[in-house]
Protein backbone atom coordinates (compact mmCIF):
# COMPACT_ATOMS: atom_id res chain seq x y z
CA UNK A 1 0.00 0.00 0.00
CA UNK A 2 2.69 2.38 1.09
CA UNK A 3 4.91 1.45 -1.83
CA UNK A 4 2.11 2.08 -4.34
CA UNK A 5 1.67 5.49 -2.86
CA UNK A 6 5.34 6.33 -3.25
CA UNK A 7 5.31 5.04 -6.80
CA UNK A 8 2.37 7.26 -7.67
CA UNK A 9 4.11 10.23 -6.13
CA UNK A 10 7.25 9.54 -8.10
CA UNK A 11 5.36 9.27 -11.36
CA UNK A 12 3.51 12.49 -10.68
CA UNK A 13 6.65 14.43 -9.91
CA UNK A 14 8.44 12.98 -12.92
CA UNK A 15 5.52 13.90 -15.15
CA UNK A 16 5.32 17.32 -13.56
CA UNK A 17 8.85 18.14 -14.58
CA UNK A 18 8.11 17.04 -18.13
CA UNK A 19 5.26 19.47 -18.61
CA UNK A 20 6.52 22.58 -20.32
CA UNK A 21 4.80 25.75 -19.41
CA UNK A 22 3.51 27.32 -22.60
CA UNK A 23 4.46 30.88 -23.33
CA UNK A 24 3.49 32.57 -26.55
CA UNK A 25 4.83 35.64 -28.27
CA UNK A 26 2.33 37.28 -30.60
CA UNK A 27 3.83 39.63 -33.18
CA UNK A 28 1.33 42.47 -33.44
CA UNK A 29 0.42 43.78 -36.85
CA UNK A 30 -0.39 47.45 -36.78
CA UNK A 31 0.00 50.67 -38.73
CA UNK A 32 1.72 52.69 -35.95
CA UNK A 33 -1.70 54.08 -35.00
CA UNK A 34 -3.75 51.06 -34.09
CA UNK A 35 -3.65 47.29 -33.95
CA UNK A 36 -5.00 45.69 -37.09
CA UNK A 37 -8.02 43.41 -36.54
CA UNK A 38 -6.01 40.29 -37.51
CA UNK A 39 -3.91 40.72 -34.35
CA UNK A 40 -7.06 40.30 -32.24
CA UNK A 41 -7.89 37.01 -34.01
CA UNK A 42 -4.32 35.86 -33.45
CA UNK A 43 -4.59 36.68 -29.73
CA UNK A 44 -7.58 34.34 -29.48
CA UNK A 45 -5.49 31.57 -31.01
CA UNK A 46 -2.67 32.35 -28.56
CA UNK A 47 -5.06 32.08 -25.61
CA UNK A 48 -6.25 28.75 -26.92
CA UNK A 49 -2.72 27.38 -26.68
CA UNK A 50 -2.73 28.40 -23.03
CA UNK A 51 -0.03 29.79 -20.78
CA UNK A 52 1.43 33.28 -20.89
CA UNK A 53 0.71 35.54 -23.83
CA UNK A 54 3.18 38.31 -24.60
CA UNK A 55 2.65 40.78 -27.43
CA UNK A 56 5.42 42.48 -29.39
CA UNK A 57 4.61 45.89 -30.82
CA UNK A 58 7.49 47.01 -32.99
CA UNK A 59 7.21 50.11 -35.11
CA UNK A 60 7.84 53.81 -35.41
CA UNK A 61 6.11 56.02 -32.81
CA UNK A 62 3.70 53.28 -31.91
CA UNK A 63 3.24 53.74 -28.17
CA UNK A 64 -0.53 54.08 -28.51
CA UNK A 65 -0.64 50.70 -30.22
CA UNK A 66 1.22 49.11 -27.30
CA UNK A 67 -1.20 50.69 -24.82
CA UNK A 68 -4.02 49.34 -26.93
CA UNK A 69 -2.58 45.84 -26.75
CA UNK A 70 -2.24 46.11 -22.95
CA UNK A 71 -6.04 46.28 -22.76
CA UNK A 72 -6.57 42.86 -24.33
CA UNK A 73 -7.74 40.43 -21.67
CA UNK A 74 -5.36 37.58 -21.04
CA UNK A 75 -2.26 39.36 -22.31
CA UNK A 76 0.37 39.30 -19.58
CA UNK A 77 2.97 41.58 -21.07
CA UNK A 78 3.51 43.90 -24.01
CA UNK A 79 6.95 44.63 -25.41
CA UNK A 80 7.29 47.96 -27.15
CA UNK A 81 10.18 48.42 -29.56
CA UNK A 82 10.17 51.85 -31.09
CA UNK A 83 12.67 52.70 -33.80
CA UNK A 84 12.91 54.25 -37.24
CA UNK A 85 14.50 50.97 -38.28
CA UNK A 86 11.06 49.35 -38.30
CA UNK A 87 9.74 51.66 -40.99
CA UNK A 88 7.79 49.49 -43.42
CA UNK A 89 7.86 46.58 -40.94
CA UNK A 90 10.25 44.62 -43.13
CA UNK A 91 10.97 41.02 -42.18
CA UNK A 92 14.69 41.85 -42.26
CA UNK A 93 14.38 44.60 -39.65
CA UNK A 94 12.07 42.68 -37.30
CA UNK A 95 13.76 39.27 -37.34
CA UNK A 96 16.84 40.16 -35.21
CA UNK A 97 14.56 41.72 -32.58
CA UNK A 98 12.38 38.62 -32.40
CA UNK A 99 15.45 36.39 -32.17
CA UNK A 100 16.77 38.51 -29.31
CA UNK A 101 13.47 38.27 -27.44
CA UNK A 102 13.31 34.54 -28.05
CA UNK A 103 16.81 34.04 -26.66
CA UNK A 104 15.91 36.00 -23.53
CA UNK A 105 12.50 34.47 -22.88
CA UNK A 106 12.48 31.07 -24.63
CA UNK A 107 8.89 31.21 -25.77
CA UNK A 108 7.28 27.91 -26.75
CA UNK A 109 5.22 29.56 -29.51
CA UNK A 110 5.64 32.53 -31.81
CA UNK A 111 2.45 33.58 -33.56
CA UNK A 112 1.33 36.15 -36.09
CA UNK A 113 -1.65 36.55 -38.38
CA UNK A 114 -1.39 34.90 -41.80
CA UNK A 115 -1.43 38.23 -43.65
CA UNK A 116 1.15 39.52 -46.15
CA UNK A 117 3.04 40.82 -43.09
CA UNK A 118 2.97 37.57 -41.11
CA UNK A 119 3.67 35.40 -44.15
CA UNK A 120 6.74 37.43 -45.07
CA UNK A 121 8.10 37.54 -41.52
CA UNK A 122 7.53 34.25 -39.70
CA UNK A 123 9.32 31.85 -42.09
CA UNK A 124 12.44 34.02 -41.91
CA UNK A 125 12.32 33.89 -38.11
CA UNK A 126 11.75 30.12 -38.22
CA UNK A 127 14.70 29.59 -40.58
CA UNK A 128 16.97 31.53 -38.23
CA UNK A 129 15.89 29.29 -35.34
CA UNK A 130 15.96 26.12 -37.46
CA UNK A 131 12.32 25.20 -36.93
CA UNK A 132 9.65 24.26 -39.41
CA UNK A 133 6.96 26.96 -39.43
CA UNK A 134 3.28 26.10 -39.68
CA UNK A 135 1.27 28.30 -42.02
CA UNK A 136 -2.26 29.57 -41.90
CA UNK A 137 -3.73 27.32 -39.20
CA UNK A 138 -7.49 27.02 -38.90
CA UNK A 139 -7.55 25.02 -35.67
CA UNK A 140 -5.53 24.15 -32.57
CA UNK A 141 -5.91 20.64 -31.18
CA UNK A 142 -3.21 20.97 -28.55
CA UNK A 143 -0.05 22.97 -28.02
CA UNK A 144 1.78 20.96 -30.70
CA UNK A 145 -1.06 19.78 -32.95
CA UNK A 146 -2.57 22.09 -35.52
CA UNK A 147 -5.10 21.96 -38.32
CA UNK A 148 -4.58 23.67 -41.67
CA UNK A 149 -5.88 23.40 -45.21
CA UNK A 150 -3.88 22.18 -48.19
CA UNK A 151 -4.68 21.99 -51.93
CA UNK A 152 -6.64 25.25 -52.01
CA UNK A 153 -8.84 24.27 -49.10
CA UNK A 154 -9.78 20.93 -50.65
CA UNK A 155 -8.17 18.86 -47.88
CA UNK A 156 -7.72 19.40 -44.19
CA UNK A 157 -4.41 18.36 -42.69
CA UNK A 158 -3.83 17.74 -39.01
CA UNK A 159 -0.16 17.84 -38.13
CA UNK A 160 1.95 17.44 -35.06
CA UNK A 161 5.02 19.60 -34.81
CA UNK A 162 8.16 17.95 -33.47
CA UNK A 163 10.04 21.22 -32.98
CA UNK A 164 10.30 22.55 -29.43
CA UNK A 165 9.45 26.03 -30.66
CA UNK A 166 6.33 26.38 -32.76
CA UNK A 167 6.28 29.25 -35.24
CA UNK A 168 2.70 29.55 -36.43
CA UNK A 169 0.68 31.89 -38.64
CA UNK A 170 -3.03 32.07 -37.92
CA UNK A 171 -5.92 32.33 -40.36
CA UNK A 172 -7.93 35.23 -39.01
CA UNK A 173 -11.32 34.03 -40.21
CA UNK A 174 -10.99 30.83 -38.17
CA UNK A 175 -10.64 32.55 -34.78
CA UNK A 176 -12.96 35.14 -33.20
CA UNK A 177 -11.30 38.48 -32.47
CA UNK A 178 -10.29 39.06 -28.84
CA UNK A 179 -11.82 42.35 -27.66
CA UNK A 180 -9.31 44.98 -26.56
CA UNK A 181 -10.84 45.46 -23.13
CA UNK A 182 -10.73 44.09 -19.60
CA UNK A 183 -6.98 43.55 -19.64
CA UNK A 184 -4.27 45.31 -17.74
CA UNK A 185 -0.93 44.12 -19.10
CA UNK A 186 2.35 45.81 -18.32
CA UNK A 187 4.11 47.56 -21.15
CA UNK A 188 7.86 47.18 -21.23
CA UNK A 189 10.19 49.06 -23.53
CA UNK A 190 12.75 46.93 -25.29
CA UNK A 191 15.66 48.15 -27.37
CA UNK A 192 15.50 47.62 -31.09
CA UNK A 193 18.77 45.69 -30.99
CA UNK A 194 20.88 45.11 -34.06
CA UNK A 195 19.54 47.10 -36.95
CA UNK A 196 19.46 45.35 -40.28
CA UNK A 197 19.48 47.50 -43.39
CA UNK A 198 19.30 44.67 -45.90
CA UNK A 199 16.05 46.03 -47.28
CA UNK A 200 15.25 49.69 -47.79
CA UNK A 201 11.60 50.54 -47.48
CA UNK A 202 10.56 53.12 -50.06
CA UNK A 203 6.78 53.58 -49.97
CA UNK A 204 3.38 51.99 -50.02
CA UNK A 205 0.62 52.62 -52.49
CA UNK A 206 -2.56 51.66 -50.68
CA UNK A 207 -5.96 51.56 -52.34
CA UNK A 208 -8.22 53.98 -50.52
CA UNK A 209 -11.75 52.99 -49.66
CA UNK A 210 -14.44 54.00 -47.18
CA UNK A 211 -15.89 50.51 -47.23
CA UNK A 212 -15.16 47.94 -44.55
CA UNK A 213 -11.91 46.01 -44.83
CA UNK A 214 -12.32 42.90 -46.97
CA UNK A 215 -11.06 40.21 -44.59
CA UNK A 216 -13.09 41.38 -41.59
CA UNK A 217 -16.30 42.61 -43.29
CA UNK A 218 -19.61 40.99 -42.28
CA UNK A 219 -20.86 41.17 -45.85
CA UNK A 220 -18.77 40.80 -48.99
CA UNK A 221 -19.92 41.33 -52.57
CA UNK A 222 -17.54 40.02 -55.22
CA UNK A 223 -17.53 40.42 -58.97
CA UNK A 224 -15.98 38.19 -61.60
CA UNK A 225 -15.37 38.11 -65.31
CA UNK A 226 -19.11 38.45 -65.84
CA UNK A 227 -18.89 42.10 -64.76
CA UNK A 228 -17.38 42.73 -68.22
CA UNK A 229 -15.59 45.98 -67.22
CA UNK A 230 -14.19 47.96 -64.33
CA UNK A 231 -16.85 50.57 -64.97
CA UNK A 232 -19.58 48.03 -64.22
CA UNK A 233 -18.15 47.38 -60.75
CA UNK A 234 -20.03 50.58 -59.83
CA UNK A 235 -23.12 48.38 -59.70
CA UNK A 236 -21.48 46.37 -56.93
CA UNK A 237 -20.21 49.43 -55.07
CA UNK A 238 -23.74 50.88 -54.96
CA UNK A 239 -25.11 47.61 -53.62
CA UNK A 240 -22.19 47.32 -51.20
CA UNK A 241 -22.93 50.76 -49.78
CA UNK A 242 -26.53 49.71 -49.08
CA UNK A 243 -25.36 46.61 -47.21
CA UNK A 244 -22.26 48.16 -45.62
CA UNK A 245 -20.32 45.49 -47.45
CA UNK A 246 -16.76 45.16 -48.67
CA UNK A 247 -16.15 44.53 -52.37
CA UNK A 248 -14.00 41.66 -53.58
CA UNK A 249 -13.18 40.09 -56.92
CA UNK A 250 -12.20 36.88 -58.61
CA UNK A 251 -8.81 36.43 -60.21
CA UNK A 252 -10.40 36.76 -63.65
CA UNK A 253 -11.72 40.21 -62.76
CA UNK A 254 -8.33 41.28 -61.39
CA UNK A 255 -6.40 39.90 -64.36
CA UNK A 256 -8.76 41.67 -66.74
CA UNK A 257 -7.89 44.90 -64.93
CA UNK A 258 -11.43 45.60 -63.64
CA UNK A 259 -10.19 46.16 -60.07
CA UNK A 260 -6.88 46.21 -58.19
CA UNK A 261 -5.11 43.05 -57.05
CA UNK A 262 -5.62 43.56 -53.34
CA UNK A 263 -9.34 42.83 -53.82
CA UNK A 264 -8.72 39.29 -55.03
CA UNK A 265 -10.47 36.59 -53.01
CA UNK A 266 -9.06 33.08 -53.34
CA UNK A 267 -6.20 30.68 -52.72
CA UNK A 268 -3.61 33.25 -53.66
CA UNK A 269 -5.55 36.32 -52.63
CA UNK A 270 -7.50 36.97 -49.47
CA UNK A 271 -9.38 34.39 -47.44
CA UNK A 272 -12.73 35.72 -46.26
CA UNK A 273 -15.49 34.15 -44.20
CA UNK A 274 -18.22 36.79 -43.85
CA UNK A 275 -21.79 36.17 -42.71
CA UNK A 276 -22.97 36.86 -46.24
CA UNK A 277 -20.97 36.46 -49.46
CA UNK A 278 -22.60 37.53 -52.71
CA UNK A 279 -20.80 36.24 -55.81
CA UNK A 280 -21.78 38.14 -58.93
CA UNK A 281 -20.72 36.91 -62.35
CA UNK A 282 -18.24 34.47 -60.78
CA UNK A 283 -18.13 30.92 -62.14
CA UNK A 284 -16.59 29.45 -58.98
CA UNK A 285 -13.19 27.98 -59.85
CA UNK A 286 -11.45 25.84 -57.18
CA UNK A 287 -9.01 28.67 -56.51
CA UNK A 288 -11.79 31.17 -55.86
CA UNK A 289 -13.80 28.82 -53.65
CA UNK A 290 -10.66 28.37 -51.49
CA UNK A 291 -11.04 31.97 -50.44
CA UNK A 292 -14.72 32.14 -49.57
CA UNK A 293 -16.31 28.76 -48.99
CA UNK A 294 -16.34 29.15 -45.21
CA UNK A 295 -18.76 32.08 -45.53
CA UNK A 296 -21.94 31.50 -43.52
CA UNK A 297 -24.35 32.21 -46.35
CA UNK A 298 -23.35 32.27 -50.00
CA UNK A 299 -25.50 33.88 -52.68
CA UNK A 300 -24.62 33.44 -56.34
CA UNK A 301 -25.94 35.54 -59.19
CA UNK A 302 -24.94 34.07 -62.52
CA UNK A 303 -26.68 33.58 -65.82
CA UNK A 304 -25.06 30.17 -66.40
CA UNK A 305 -27.07 27.54 -64.48
CA UNK A 306 -24.13 25.12 -64.84
CA UNK A 307 -21.64 27.41 -63.06
CA UNK A 308 -19.85 25.51 -60.25
CA UNK A 309 -20.55 28.38 -57.86
CA UNK A 310 -24.15 27.10 -57.58
CA UNK A 311 -22.83 23.91 -55.95
CA UNK A 312 -21.69 25.85 -52.91
CA UNK A 313 -24.30 28.64 -52.93
CA UNK A 314 -27.10 28.57 -50.36
CA UNK A 315 -29.18 30.78 -52.62
CA UNK A 316 -28.70 30.92 -56.33
CA UNK A 317 -30.23 33.30 -58.81
CA UNK A 318 -29.91 32.30 -62.45
CA UNK A 319 -30.20 35.74 -63.94
CA UNK A 320 -28.45 38.48 -65.88
CA UNK A 321 -26.47 40.39 -63.27
CA UNK A 322 -27.01 43.66 -65.11
CA UNK A 323 -30.72 43.32 -64.35
CA UNK A 324 -30.63 41.48 -61.01
CA UNK A 325 -28.05 43.64 -59.21
CA UNK A 326 -29.73 47.03 -59.88
CA UNK A 327 -33.09 45.46 -58.96
CA UNK A 328 -31.66 44.14 -55.70
CA UNK A 329 -30.10 47.51 -54.89
CA UNK A 330 -33.34 49.31 -55.57
CA UNK A 331 -35.50 46.99 -53.49
CA UNK A 332 -33.27 46.97 -50.43
Amino acid at each position, binding site marked *: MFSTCVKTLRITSKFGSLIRYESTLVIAEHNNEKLLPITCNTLTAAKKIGGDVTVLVAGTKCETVAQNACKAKGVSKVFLADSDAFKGFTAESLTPLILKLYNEHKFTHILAGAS*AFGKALLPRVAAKLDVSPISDIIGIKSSDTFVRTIYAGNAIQTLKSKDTLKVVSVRSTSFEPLPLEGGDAKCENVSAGDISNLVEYIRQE*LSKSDRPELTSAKVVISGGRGMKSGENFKLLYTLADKLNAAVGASRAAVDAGFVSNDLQVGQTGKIVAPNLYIAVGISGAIQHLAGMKDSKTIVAINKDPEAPIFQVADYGLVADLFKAVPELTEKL
Partner: protein
Amino acid sequence: MARVLVGVKRVIDYAVKIRVKPDKTGVVTDGIKHSMNPFDEIAIEEAVRMKEKKLAQEIIVVSCGPTQSQDTIRTALAMGADRGIHVEISGPEYQTLQPVHISKILAKLAQDEKVDLVILGKQAIDDDNNQTAQMTAGVLDWPSGTFCSKIENNNGELTITREIDGGLEIVKMKTPAVLSADLRLNEPRYATLPNIMKAKKKPIKKITSKDLGVDLTPRIEILSVEDPPVRQAGVILPDVDTLIVKLKEAGHI
Protein backbone atom coordinates in the same frame (compact mmCIF):
# COMPACT_ATOMS: atom_id res chain seq x y z
CA MET B 1 25.72 39.86 -65.15
CA ALA B 2 24.10 37.67 -62.64
CA ARG B 3 23.62 33.99 -62.13
CA VAL B 4 20.09 33.10 -61.20
CA LEU B 5 18.85 30.03 -59.35
CA VAL B 6 15.20 29.17 -59.80
CA GLY B 7 13.40 26.54 -57.72
CA VAL B 8 10.58 24.59 -59.32
CA LYS B 9 8.17 22.08 -57.81
CA ARG B 10 6.17 19.33 -59.44
CA VAL B 11 2.62 19.48 -58.10
CA ILE B 12 -0.80 18.09 -58.99
CA ASP B 13 -2.11 20.19 -61.88
CA TYR B 14 -4.05 23.22 -60.65
CA ALA B 15 -7.20 22.22 -62.55
CA VAL B 16 -7.45 18.73 -61.02
CA LYS B 17 -10.08 18.09 -58.38
CA ILE B 18 -8.05 16.27 -55.75
CA ARG B 19 -9.18 13.16 -53.87
CA VAL B 20 -8.31 12.36 -50.30
CA LYS B 21 -7.09 8.78 -49.71
CA PRO B 22 -9.57 6.62 -47.80
CA ASP B 23 -6.95 5.86 -45.13
CA LYS B 24 -6.57 9.61 -44.53
CA THR B 25 -2.80 9.62 -45.00
CA GLY B 26 -2.76 12.08 -47.86
CA VAL B 27 -4.24 12.76 -51.26
CA VAL B 28 -4.21 10.43 -54.26
CA THR B 29 -1.25 11.29 -56.50
CA ASP B 30 -0.76 8.09 -58.53
CA GLY B 31 -2.01 8.42 -62.09
CA ILE B 32 -2.97 12.04 -61.51
CA LYS B 33 -1.88 14.79 -63.90
CA HIS B 34 1.04 16.74 -62.49
CA SER B 35 2.65 19.90 -63.78
CA MET B 36 4.94 22.71 -62.73
CA ASN B 37 3.65 24.78 -59.83
CA PRO B 38 2.09 27.86 -61.53
CA PHE B 39 4.05 30.32 -59.40
CA ASP B 40 7.29 28.62 -60.42
CA GLU B 41 6.47 29.11 -64.11
CA ILE B 42 6.30 32.80 -63.32
CA ALA B 43 9.66 32.62 -61.53
CA ILE B 44 11.30 30.92 -64.53
CA GLU B 45 9.74 33.40 -66.94
CA GLU B 46 11.15 36.30 -64.92
CA ALA B 47 14.63 34.78 -64.93
CA VAL B 48 14.45 34.17 -68.68
CA ARG B 49 13.39 37.78 -69.25
CA MET B 50 16.39 38.92 -67.20
CA LYS B 51 18.60 36.84 -69.42
CA GLU B 52 17.01 38.31 -72.54
CA LYS B 53 17.73 41.78 -71.17
CA LYS B 54 21.33 40.68 -70.58
CA LEU B 55 20.85 41.13 -66.84
CA ALA B 56 21.39 37.44 -66.21
CA GLN B 57 24.11 35.28 -67.58
CA GLU B 58 23.01 31.82 -66.57
CA ILE B 59 19.81 30.31 -65.22
CA ILE B 60 20.08 27.21 -63.09
CA VAL B 61 16.86 25.41 -62.32
CA VAL B 62 16.55 23.08 -59.36
CA SER B 63 13.83 20.72 -58.18
CA CYS B 64 13.71 18.49 -55.11
CA GLY B 65 11.59 15.37 -55.39
CA PRO B 66 11.17 11.96 -56.98
CA THR B 67 12.45 10.97 -60.46
CA GLN B 68 9.44 12.60 -62.15
CA SER B 69 10.67 15.99 -60.97
CA GLN B 70 13.04 15.82 -63.93
CA ASP B 71 10.06 16.40 -66.23
CA THR B 72 9.43 19.65 -64.39
CA ILE B 73 13.09 20.61 -64.78
CA ARG B 74 12.86 19.84 -68.53
CA THR B 75 9.87 22.15 -68.82
CA ALA B 76 11.89 24.93 -67.21
CA LEU B 77 14.81 24.21 -69.56
CA ALA B 78 12.43 24.41 -72.51
CA MET B 79 11.28 27.82 -71.28
CA GLY B 80 14.86 29.04 -71.37
CA ALA B 81 16.78 27.88 -68.30
CA ASP B 82 20.35 26.76 -69.06
CA ARG B 83 20.87 23.72 -66.90
CA GLY B 84 19.17 21.73 -64.20
CA ILE B 85 19.92 20.21 -60.83
CA HIS B 86 17.72 17.40 -59.59
CA VAL B 87 17.95 16.75 -55.87
CA GLU B 88 16.42 13.31 -55.68
CA ILE B 89 14.17 12.75 -52.68
CA SER B 90 11.52 10.07 -52.68
CA GLY B 91 9.51 7.73 -50.48
CA PRO B 92 8.81 8.59 -46.85
CA GLU B 93 11.37 11.40 -46.87
CA TYR B 94 9.44 13.10 -49.64
CA GLN B 95 6.17 12.74 -47.68
CA THR B 96 7.53 14.82 -44.81
CA LEU B 97 9.75 17.09 -46.91
CA GLN B 98 9.08 20.68 -45.91
CA PRO B 99 10.28 24.20 -46.71
CA VAL B 100 12.65 23.92 -43.74
CA HIS B 101 14.53 21.23 -45.68
CA ILE B 102 14.19 22.70 -49.18
CA SER B 103 15.41 26.11 -48.04
CA LYS B 104 18.63 24.55 -46.73
CA ILE B 105 19.14 22.69 -50.00
CA LEU B 106 18.54 25.85 -52.03
CA ALA B 107 20.80 27.91 -49.78
CA LYS B 108 23.62 25.39 -50.14
CA LEU B 109 23.20 25.31 -53.93
CA ALA B 110 23.04 29.11 -54.08
CA GLN B 111 26.43 29.25 -52.37
CA ASP B 112 27.99 26.36 -54.28
CA GLU B 113 26.85 27.73 -57.64
CA LYS B 114 27.73 31.31 -56.64
CA VAL B 115 24.39 32.75 -57.69
CA ASP B 116 23.38 36.37 -57.22
CA LEU B 117 19.66 35.87 -57.25
CA VAL B 118 17.28 33.13 -56.19
CA ILE B 119 13.77 33.39 -57.62
CA LEU B 120 11.00 31.13 -56.31
CA GLY B 121 7.23 31.04 -56.56
CA LYS B 122 5.45 32.60 -53.60
CA GLN B 123 3.75 29.33 -52.70
CA ALA B 124 3.22 25.80 -53.95
CA ILE B 125 -0.42 25.13 -54.70
CA ASP B 126 -0.35 21.72 -52.99
CA ASP B 127 0.87 22.44 -49.46
CA ASP B 128 0.06 26.16 -49.67
CA ASN B 129 2.86 26.94 -47.22
CA ASN B 130 4.30 30.16 -48.62
CA GLN B 131 7.58 29.70 -46.70
CA THR B 132 10.45 28.49 -48.88
CA ALA B 133 11.67 31.82 -50.30
CA GLN B 134 11.53 33.55 -46.92
CA MET B 135 13.37 30.66 -45.27
CA THR B 136 16.03 30.44 -47.97
CA ALA B 137 16.72 34.14 -47.50
CA GLY B 138 16.86 33.54 -43.74
CA VAL B 139 19.35 30.69 -44.04
CA LEU B 140 21.57 32.76 -46.36
CA ASP B 141 21.04 36.00 -44.45
CA TRP B 142 20.16 37.63 -47.74
CA PRO B 143 17.40 40.20 -48.18
CA SER B 144 14.08 38.88 -49.42
CA GLY B 145 11.55 40.41 -51.76
CA THR B 146 8.37 38.47 -51.25
CA PHE B 147 5.19 38.49 -53.40
CA CYS B 148 6.85 40.47 -56.21
CA SER B 149 4.69 41.91 -58.95
CA LYS B 150 7.50 43.95 -60.50
CA ILE B 151 11.25 43.51 -60.37
CA GLU B 152 13.53 46.23 -61.70
CA ASN B 153 17.13 45.09 -61.78
CA ASN B 154 19.68 47.82 -62.26
CA ASN B 155 22.96 45.92 -62.16
CA GLY B 156 22.20 44.25 -58.88
CA GLU B 157 20.22 47.16 -57.43
CA LEU B 158 16.73 45.75 -57.14
CA THR B 159 13.62 47.90 -56.95
CA ILE B 160 10.74 45.64 -56.11
CA THR B 161 7.01 46.16 -56.08
CA ARG B 162 5.37 43.80 -53.60
CA GLU B 163 1.73 42.80 -53.38
CA ILE B 164 0.61 43.51 -49.82
CA ASP B 165 -2.80 43.47 -48.15
CA GLY B 166 -3.90 47.05 -48.72
CA GLY B 167 -2.24 47.54 -52.11
CA LEU B 168 1.39 47.70 -53.19
CA GLU B 169 4.70 48.33 -51.50
CA ILE B 170 8.02 49.35 -53.02
CA VAL B 171 11.31 48.28 -51.48
CA LYS B 172 14.93 48.37 -52.57
CA MET B 173 17.72 45.92 -51.95
CA LYS B 174 21.00 44.77 -53.38
CA THR B 175 21.88 41.36 -54.71
CA PRO B 176 22.47 38.70 -53.58
CA ALA B 177 18.79 38.38 -52.74
CA VAL B 178 15.90 35.92 -52.71
CA LEU B 179 12.69 36.89 -54.48
CA SER B 180 9.29 35.22 -54.59
CA ALA B 181 6.95 35.65 -57.54
CA ASP B 182 3.32 36.66 -57.26
CA LEU B 183 0.79 35.92 -59.99
CA ARG B 184 1.00 39.44 -61.34
CA LEU B 185 4.72 39.42 -62.04
CA ASN B 186 4.43 38.27 -65.65
CA GLU B 187 2.69 36.04 -68.18
CA PRO B 188 4.76 32.86 -68.58
CA ARG B 189 5.54 31.80 -72.15
CA TYR B 190 4.73 28.44 -73.66
CA ALA B 191 7.66 26.25 -74.52
CA THR B 192 7.82 25.83 -78.31
CA LEU B 193 8.50 22.43 -79.87
CA PRO B 194 12.03 23.35 -81.06
CA ASN B 195 12.84 24.58 -77.56
CA ILE B 196 11.45 21.39 -76.03
CA MET B 197 13.75 19.44 -78.35
CA LYS B 198 16.72 21.64 -77.41
CA ALA B 199 15.92 21.23 -73.73
CA LYS B 200 16.49 17.49 -74.06
CA LYS B 201 20.15 18.21 -74.73
CA LYS B 202 20.60 20.53 -71.77
CA PRO B 203 22.33 18.95 -68.78
CA ILE B 204 20.56 17.90 -65.58
CA LYS B 205 22.85 17.05 -62.70
CA LYS B 206 21.44 14.52 -60.26
CA ILE B 207 22.46 14.77 -56.62
CA THR B 208 21.10 13.79 -53.22
CA SER B 209 20.49 15.77 -50.06
CA LYS B 210 23.42 13.88 -48.50
CA ASP B 211 25.77 15.31 -51.16
CA LEU B 212 24.76 18.72 -49.88
CA GLY B 213 24.91 17.73 -46.23
CA VAL B 214 21.28 18.59 -45.59
CA ASP B 215 19.44 16.58 -42.94
CA LEU B 216 15.89 15.63 -43.94
CA THR B 217 14.70 14.42 -40.52
CA PRO B 218 10.94 15.03 -40.40
CA ARG B 219 9.87 18.02 -38.34
CA ILE B 220 6.23 17.14 -38.49
CA GLU B 221 4.04 14.10 -38.22
CA ILE B 222 1.01 14.16 -40.46
CA LEU B 223 -1.78 12.81 -38.27
CA SER B 224 -4.51 12.91 -40.88
CA VAL B 225 -5.65 14.37 -44.17
CA GLU B 226 -9.40 14.62 -44.54
CA ASP B 227 -12.05 16.01 -46.82
CA PRO B 228 -13.32 19.44 -45.84
CA PRO B 229 -16.91 19.63 -44.58
CA VAL B 230 -19.36 19.53 -47.47
CA ARG B 231 -21.72 22.46 -47.79
CA GLN B 232 -25.39 21.58 -47.84
CA ALA B 233 -26.98 21.91 -51.23
CA GLY B 234 -28.64 25.26 -51.68
CA VAL B 235 -31.69 26.33 -53.63
CA ILE B 236 -32.16 28.18 -56.87
CA LEU B 237 -34.51 31.09 -56.35
CA PRO B 238 -36.91 32.33 -59.01
CA ASP B 239 -36.41 36.08 -58.60
CA VAL B 240 -34.84 38.97 -56.71
CA ASP B 241 -37.88 39.36 -54.45
CA THR B 242 -37.54 35.81 -53.14
CA LEU B 243 -33.83 36.41 -52.56
CA ILE B 244 -34.62 39.47 -50.46
CA VAL B 245 -37.20 37.47 -48.44
CA LYS B 246 -34.64 34.71 -47.82
CA LEU B 247 -31.93 37.16 -46.78
CA LYS B 248 -34.36 38.86 -44.41
CA GLU B 249 -35.38 35.52 -42.89
CA ALA B 250 -31.73 34.68 -42.26
CA GLY B 251 -31.21 38.09 -40.64
CA HIS B 252 -28.65 39.28 -43.16
CA ILE B 253 -30.59 42.42 -44.08
